[in-house]
């Protein structure tokens, strides 16, 4: 570079150089402005400048003087050829003349190379440049030879060139950064401190959810649920999920059949009462059962007679082949019904599952709400205000309503017509056809009000025969086996759906029991439903509740109604009593131990027989005894001669005694 050759700016700090360049540019502008302005001023149409006086505060005629640079440019105008004025680069002479102009002006950058040398000179004399020259910049020529200086200067020039590029890049970055900052700064102070706090509060409130278990639900709940023991003052509402009441471990088995257990105890009590009472029944029984000689404790011979009668056939314990439970007239219809129901269920299965899942979501929502309201451990501890409690209560009521509607108990859907063709099961029945639907019932049930509970129980009673657990017993009747899955469903129904119903019936007045029993007999194929464990258990509950209320002086009118229903039920089941036992078809020739265990599961049938015996007239007792006599003997034979281990025999006998005691008899009479 030519400039650096002179050694003046070789080590010029880059900033200074930039400043210098800027200065030069500035001066050039000024220089250019001078002649141009003068030229144009010379051509001004002064007639249009009426307001110039106001604007400039002077006569428009003197206007060129305001723009004069110390009067020198005014002189220059006369010297410069008007043609060349606009383009000073072509005016070599004038340029040289300008160089002598005392005004702080350098030559234009585009002057011819001959006078380029004036630029550094101009710089050195310019108002800004001298101070910026580092003193040592001028020193080297005194010490070094010209070649050396030249060499180093060239090198430095290269360096400074690279330095310049770096500087440019850095400047660009800085500018970009500043531009970005400026873009942001223009929003500065848009929000007041108050506004910011307000937004922060909103964000915080979003972080603090109603449900602190949101992300860690399982762990939090699990720790709460599996705590050693709930403190006694802890209200039961605090149970995190309704299903807890079915015991720990998420299994429904332990403690689960509370309701059923209570019912069994009740029957046991009633049977004991019946046994203890030296009621006249013994007398009437003597006459009624005289033919089968069961009447006397002191008549072992007759008991042996019974046993002989069994062994007479030689095959008393061989497979029996009684007719299928449903009356032949009913059987085909029911088969058709069962099949169509099965198909309909599979068609709707996905919709049902979706409804059940919706119900789960609703229950979860409800339970979260309940946890909030009842200060479940782990919830924020500050007390809820009146207003928010009220809001929660409103929300809770709304969700409960949603839940109730999801059950579709009030659906106008008719139960399958007797023909059953094409009939869909009631939505509630569909709901209960899936495992998780059954499991959800206890959790829904506790949120129902009294009226809803009544409607729930009535709907279920009216549609009982279309329940999958009833169908399964029919399939068993056909195939003689029952799959593990169906057993599980049965167990689940017994543990989850039946207990709430039992609890309801056990608190109901006789009028309600009558209504329900009437509905059950009317709307269902009773012999068929009675073959299922759930169906027979429900009947047991009805009857035993009726008998309990009889002892508690129920109104005579209602009692008469109950007696009529009892007679109707008995009449319907007559000739099917023996077939209530699922193992009726079983053979005694196989694995006796297994058979005994299977028989033990039939305790519910013995319970039913006991319950129905209590209110039975002598004639009815006679019928009962003659129908199930073979079964009694089979069980007793199995118990005594089956070579069974442990306490199986005594348990079998205890089962049979449930029934015999209700009649005022005991297995020992038959065994002696």
């Amino acid at each position: 570079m030519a400039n650096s050759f002179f050694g003046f700016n070789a080590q010029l700090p880059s900033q200074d150089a930039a400043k210098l360049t800027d200065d030069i540019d500035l001066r050039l502008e000024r220089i250019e402005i001078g002649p141009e302005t003068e030229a144009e001023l010379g051509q001004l149409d002064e007639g249009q400048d009426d307001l110039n006086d106001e604007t400039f505060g002077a006569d428009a005629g003197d206007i060129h003087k305001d723009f004069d640079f110390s009067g020198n440019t005014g002189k220059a105008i006369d010297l410069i050829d008007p043609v060349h004025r606009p383009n000073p680069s072509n005016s070599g002479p004038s340029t040289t003349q300008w160089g002598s102009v005392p005004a702080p002006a350098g030559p234009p950058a585009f002057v011819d190379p001959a006078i380029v040398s004036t630029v550094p000179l101009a710089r050195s004399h310019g108002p800004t440049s001298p101070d910026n020259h580092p003193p040592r910049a001028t020193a080297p020529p005194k010490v070094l030879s010209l070649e050396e200086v030249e060499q180093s200067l060239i090198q430095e020039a290269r360096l400074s060139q690279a330095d310049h590029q770096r500087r440019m890049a850095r400047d660009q970055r800085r500018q970009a950064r500043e531009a970005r900052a400026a873009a942001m700064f223009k929003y500065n102070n848009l929000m007041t401190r108050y506004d910011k706090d307000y937004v922060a509060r909103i964000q915080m409130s979003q972080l603090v959810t109603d449900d602190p278990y949101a992300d860690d639900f399982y762990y939090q709940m699990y720790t709460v649920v599996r705590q050693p023991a709930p403190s006694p003052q802890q209200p039961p509402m605090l149970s995190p999920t309704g299903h807890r009441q079915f015991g720990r471990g998420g299994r429904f088995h332990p403690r689960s059949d509370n309701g059923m257990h209570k019912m069994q105890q009740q029957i046991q009590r009633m049977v004991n009462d019946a046994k203890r009472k030296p009621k006249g029944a013994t007398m009437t029984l003597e006459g009624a059962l005289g033919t089968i000689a069961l009447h006397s404790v002191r008549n072992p011979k007759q008991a042996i007679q019974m046993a002989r009668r069994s062994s007479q056939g030689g095959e008393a314990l061989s497979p029996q082949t009684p007719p299928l439970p449903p009356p032949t007239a009913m059987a085909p219809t029911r088969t058709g019904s069962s099949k169509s129901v099965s198909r309909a269920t599979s068609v709707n299965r996905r919709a049902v599952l979706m409804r059940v899942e919706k119900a789960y979501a609703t229950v979860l929502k409800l339970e979260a709400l309940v946890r909030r309201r009842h200060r479940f451990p782990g919830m924020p501890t500050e007390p809820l205000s009146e207003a928010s409690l009220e809001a929660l209560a409103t929300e809770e009521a709304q969700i409960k309503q949603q839940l109730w509607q999801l059950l579709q108990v009030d659906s106008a859907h008719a139960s399958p017509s007797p023909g059953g063709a094409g009939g869909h099961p009631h939505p509630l029945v569909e709901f209960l056809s899936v495992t998780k639907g059954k499991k959800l019932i206890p959790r829904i049930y506790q949120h129902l009000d009294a009226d809803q509970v009544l409607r729930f129980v009535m709907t279920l009673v009216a549609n009982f025969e279309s329940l999958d657990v009833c169908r399964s017993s029919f399939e068993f009747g056909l195939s003689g086996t029952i799959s593990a899955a169906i057993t599980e469903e049965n167990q689940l129904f017994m543990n989850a759906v039946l207990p709430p119903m039992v609890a309801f019936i056990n608190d109901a007045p006789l009028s309600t029991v009558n209504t329900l029993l009437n509905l059950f007999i009317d709307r269902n194929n009773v012999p068929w439903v009675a073959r299922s464990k759930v169906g027979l258990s429900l009947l047991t509950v009805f009857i035993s509740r009726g008998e309990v209320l009889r002892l508690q002086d129920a109104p005579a009118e209602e009692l008469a109604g109950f007696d009529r229903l009892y007679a109707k039920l008995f009449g319907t089941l007559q000739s099917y009593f023996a077939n209530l036992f699922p193992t009726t078809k079983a053979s005694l020739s196989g694995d006796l131990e297994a058979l005994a265990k299977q028989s033990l599961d039939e305790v519910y049938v013995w319970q039913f027989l006991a319950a129905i015996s209590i209110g039975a007239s002598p004639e009815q007792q006679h019928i009962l005894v003659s129908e199930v006599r073979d079964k009694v003997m089979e069980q007793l034979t199995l118990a005594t001669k089956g070579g069974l281990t442990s306490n199986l025999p005594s348990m079998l006998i205890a089962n049979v005694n449930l029934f015999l005691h209700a009649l005022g008899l005991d297995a020992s009479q038959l065994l002696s």
Partner: protein
Amino acid sequence: MADTVTAPITSVEEPLDLVRLCLDEHIYVKLRGDREVRGRLHAFDQHLNLVLGDVEETITTVELDPETKEESVHTTNRKMDMLFVRGDGVILGLIPSILYTAPLPKKLDNHAINLFRPPRERYETPILFDLSKD
């Protein structure tokens, strides 16, 4: 609300909604390494990590007899009470009895539903999810 009941509950919005329907149901899952498991679904997440109960696992191995050059297929069965299955091994989940409208089949395998590429034409009710759609 009333609309929760009146609204038709027939559409499944996302694949995972479908899996949710299978909670507490028996499902069949095909895994990498010629494994398949059947069991009751207790938990799942978006990676298809699973917890299954009462699980039966079947491993299929094909052995080539070096002399006769005949391939023989062997299956090994295992039963496990409770199993966590890591989702990255899951190839597809077969969900019996939910997605088709025909009566329940005897063999579930014929009604396998590929979670990732649903064979739509095979079912009367369209399967309303598709991973390619976003």
